[in-house]
């Protein structure tokens, strides 16, 4: 766990890739990409059908640890908008159990523009709880206290003749971008323009691994 501040708000970057807002007892996940495996199966690429189960198991583990009152899923919670055709009854029951037990927000993402209207919880395009704003994809300009996902950030650092890469949170003083939480979600290096162009030049990452470690931009390699 790694503590940091955004708009004077204390936040915790968890080793799992989830974000915790202690003051509001809120856990935030991003890019769960549920039913990604079955989406590929529909294209005749038979990835293992266990990603939804595994992702939800890990979501439950984080929730059981922090015991929040509120949960925000920052969009791309589902890999596509036709997941209802494919998801199994067991997984639906698992999700309903969660949305019934906690105040639950589904923020819409580009993969799931319709959200999850049938699974309980509240569907929103973005959510404002000052001083923080929660949306799927970072917005240029208006940034103060913005919490988003979408880019699946990962970072790489050089160690003598080796290097180490893993998923990460990336943050400057105005915004934080969360790593993807889904079991089948890959990552994009934060040095890529698609991510770094949203951030001030002195951004830092909270790199996941055996524990969360902070590195400044200058320690990273593409």
């Amino acid at each position, binding site marked *: 766990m790694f503590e940091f501040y955004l708009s004077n708000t204390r936040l915790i970057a968890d080793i799992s890739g989830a974000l915790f807002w202690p003051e509001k007892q809120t856990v935030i996940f991003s890019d769960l990409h549920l039913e990604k495996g079955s989406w590929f199966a529909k294209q005749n690429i038979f*990835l293992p059908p266990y990603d939804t*189960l595994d992702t939800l198991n890990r979501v439950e583990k984080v929730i059981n640890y922090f015991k929040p009152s509120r949960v925000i899923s920052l969009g791309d919670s589902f890999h596509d908008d036709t997941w209802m055709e494919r998801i199994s009854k067991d997984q639906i029951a698992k999700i309903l159990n969660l949305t019934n037990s906690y105040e639950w927000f589904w923020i819409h993402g580009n993969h799931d523009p319709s959200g999850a209207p049938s699974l309980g919880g509240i569907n929103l395009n973005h959510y404002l709880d000052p001083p923080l704003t929660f949306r799927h994809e970072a917005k240029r300009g208006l940034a103060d206290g913005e919490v988003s996902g979408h880019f699946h950030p990962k970072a790489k650092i*050089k160690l003598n003749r080796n290097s180490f890469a893993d998923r990460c949170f990336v943050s400057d003083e105005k915004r934080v971008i969360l790593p993807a939480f889904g079991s089948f979600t*890959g990552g994009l290096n934060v040095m890529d323009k698609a991510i770094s162009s949203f951030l001030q030049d002195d951004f830092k990452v909270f790199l996941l691994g055996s524990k969360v470690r902070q590195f400044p931009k200058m320690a990273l390699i593409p």
Partner: protein
Amino acid sequence: MPKNFIENWFKRKSWKLHDHQIKMIQSGALGLSTLLIAPTGGGKTLAGFLPSIIELNADPKNSLHTIYISPLKALTVDVARNLLEPLSEMDLKITVETRTGDTPQSKRQRQRKSPPNILLTTPESLALLISYPDSATIFQELKCIVIDELHALAPTKRGDLLSLALARLNTWAPKARRVGLSATIPNPAEMAEYLSCAQTRNPVQIIEAKPTKKPSVEILIGNSRLPWSGHMGIYAINEIYSAILNHETSLIFVNTRAQAELIFQALWKVNDKNLAVALHHGSLSVEQRRIVENAMVKGALRAVVATSSLDLGIDWAAVDLVIQIGAPKGVSRLLQRIGRSNHRLDEPSKAILVPANRFEVLECQAAFRSVLDENLDGDILRQGGLDVLAQHIQGVACSGPFDKEVLFKEIRNASAYKDLSVEDFNSVISFVCDGGYALKTYDRYRRIKLGDNDLYRIVDSSTARRYRMNVGTIVESTTLKVKMRRGRFLGEVEEYFAQGLVPGDTFIFAGRLLTFEGIRETTIEVSPGRGETPKVPSYIGGRLPLSSNLAEGVRDLIQNPSNCQNLAAPVKEWLERQEQLSTLPKSDELLVEIFQRRKLFYMVAYSFEGRNAHQTLGMLLTRRMERSGTQPLGFVATDYAIAIWSLKPPSNIEDLFDEDMLGDDLENWMAESTVLKRTFRDVAVIAGLIDRRLPGHKKTGKQVTFSSDLIYDVLRKYDPNHILLRATRADAARGFTDIHRLGALLKRIKTNINVKYLTKVSPLAIPILLEIGRENVKGSAIEALLDDAEEALISEGMAL
């Protein structure tokens, strides 16, 4: 015998038919399948074709008569040339064509409608050719299948694929004979079994052509100080240069691409006479390699520095010397390399071995003896991989509906799959249909499904398209092109190497010093470099482990150095000192030395089982020592020994080396190993779960991508017995972990561990201790480095 036109042609050339060529003609006339074992350059390939030429002359046809399969595309082109010339000189109207990945689409389509009499191809192109609905008709009249370099193909996954194709061809053309052409091997009977039809067991005749003269081999030790460690061999560069000067054309073999680059540079530094010396290795661009090969054919070169990229291939009659720099690692490979010189059966090949360090002197001596005694090491033939089988079944489905029982029988006809169980077969079928997971949620989606008449068929054409894009068993690691800024393309390097470079770094590649400028998409931009201390490319692969056979030779030599009269003086002194200060390892025991040095305890075991087995042993021993509180800090493995250092002295050595380490410890380590993830990726690509990334091509938006590492993790957690994981474990066991050799070692030394407690490092341990620090750190050490890096940055005030 209707072969007068052939004898006449030989006479016109003032050549004589070799004995083995006559025997091949006879066995062809009898319709027998045959394995021909002959050294390079004995007219072996022509011998394979002679029976077909005779038949086609007597009974001209419009159909496909003979199919020739070679491991190399370039070789098919060369063989076509070497075949067309005599055919036109004999005035025969026999059509010969090649079919490889380089053949244009239009020509390939035409070949399916009207095939040539003799088709030259590769295992992959053959797999494609049999995957069409009309394939059976192309092969109906097939009479003969010739497989070149069989010894190189059979023990690999490409050999599995070929074995399955042979079984399919047998269904369509049961009368077709099979002919295997092989270099000298120790296990001809086993190789003949690969050729035979596993169930019908039709006999395969073995014809062996022995060279009349044994090769003349010398061991050369440079005049400068003989190195204690390292594998490059630069210290002997002046002597190597003199050898080149004294011969017409030399072929210089090294073990790695990095070594090739270094030796090439070093040779040019001493090249006062400006001899034409060239470089050849697998990372260089194809064009550049072709230029070197053609110059060699023309006799324009005095020497070529090469890696295994030239182990197989075109005959160069002009080569009169082969130099092997660094340890040969295996006798068969060494013989193959030596055979690249002097391609006439009646003259001895000439070779010089240049050991790069003291242990390699022993290894060269052992190899020298084995070459004289013809004590060869052979690859053990494999049980066919389940991933390859999955690929083959997709190909079968693409060619038309199939019956499961009939297909099972056909596959058991492939020698690599003769022991395939019904259960494994069913799992592979179910994998091909819908992924074959324990959890059945993909019922609605199917690639292949059971339809009318109980036949399996493909659901839509996308399956065939994807199969044809992904066929083959060679999975390249991702590479990046190396290009001069505003200039030419030099070759390719592995992605991971490029990622370690920072702009301004220099490295040697394609024989020159380059400065890294930056990466643009899939290209590394470079400019000519200046300065003296390059960062040499360290490529994956190329480093084969010491063969068991040669390891035994080294063990024999080391326990009785006095048996060897011509051992170099520094080596002799080194071994004598070892005998005084510790003891020499005996071949029926395991010598373990334990000593303290600068507060750390070192344990060195001289197990001589090759680097891969030692690497595995190191991982397992350190786990055990961790548990028993010895606090191991690291280990290093070479081909000959393993060294582990720890904070506390190791104890209970016999328990430490107990065989039971191959149980849970092994299972746990393999599961976490990153190498296993790479193996899984290859398996997943071959089996058709993941699409192949075509080398040099950029990911397109349409291409679906996902990380195979993530799939591996999830699969292990929820479906640990899935067929792809089983295939991965099987590959790991026979591949990088060398479990079989490790198991044999542990069994052998069970009660014969000789533990020596010493007060200081022993002479024999010096080389391996010098290796420490060259190896990369792994696992928990990475974590420590990450902590250090973080703290260093914080203390420097760089962190926010």
